């Protein structure tokens, strides 16, 4: 019972933050509501029993990535969004399409609810760092090493792109 109530509270905070991201006109307000969404998602990961993912959600997403966003917004001195008439096709076809997609997925999940079953919180050895580290450094060692190359390339790309051309 408590599990359901907590899920509904955090899920509502998530959706409210995401809607606020769309409604706000100034990018800094959107960035702060995205931080709210990420923090609420970290709590939902805790409800799922995934402690490691919840921790890196807070540290990497709400910490590092969002600080980068806020830093760039302040660096560029971005003001409120200006109104311009963009693509008509995106508005006329895209928005009904997105609403139809959301309704379809929601209806599918609700109609298959009995088949899917439930999610329990106190599962033994599910999300702890020990198991994830063993899996990451044993079975997924090669992808893990490749990500270090990816990050190195990303750093070099950011430096090259951010350099002032003289």
């Amino acid at each position, binding site marked *: 019972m408590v599990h359901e109530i907590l899920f509904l509270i955090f899920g509502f905070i998530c959706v409210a933050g995401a809607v606020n991201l*769309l409604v706000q006109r100034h990018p800094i307000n959107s960035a702060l509501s995205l931080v709210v969404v990420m923090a609420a998602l970290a709590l939902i990961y805790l409800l799922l029993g995934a402690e490691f993912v919840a921790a890196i959600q807070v540290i990497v997403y709400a910490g590092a990535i969002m600080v980068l*966003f806020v830093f760039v917004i302040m660096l560029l001195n971005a003001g409120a969004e200006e109104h311009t008439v963009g693509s008509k096709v995106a508005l006329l076809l895209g928005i009904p399409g997105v609403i139809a997609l959301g309704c379809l997925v929601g209806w599918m999940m609700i109609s298959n609810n009995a088949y899917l079953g439930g*999610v329990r919180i106190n599962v033994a050895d599910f999300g702890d760092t020990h198991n994830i580290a063993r899996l990451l450094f044993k079975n997924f060692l090669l992808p893990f090493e490749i990500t270090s190359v990816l990050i190195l390339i990303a750093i070099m790309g950011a430096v090259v792109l951010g350099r002032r051309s003289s």
Partner: protein
Amino acid sequence: MVPLSWYLILGAILFCLGILGFLIKRNIITIFMSIELMLNAVNLTFVAFANYWNEHAAAVISKIVPLSGQIFVFFVMVVAAAEAAVGLAIIIAVFRTRETLNVDRVNLLKL
């Protein structure tokens, strides 16, 4: 016990809101934040399914399968961090040459 479908519906709602933001927002930084929102929605479904498999398939399949959902979330976060670094550098470069963040004013590849 929360039904699995609630988590999936929450993920779908967040993903659709991300697409909506991508379509209706005109600021390039906010569009980038909508992409991050979509990545987060996918992460939520990954973790929910990982928990589900841990519950329902532990006896059948080896222990690798349920936990690999969380490993995928880890890799998605790594890629998102790299993408944010490069993407924000591109945004800074665009702002330097055009002095605007509005995507409707950025319609030429070369000035």
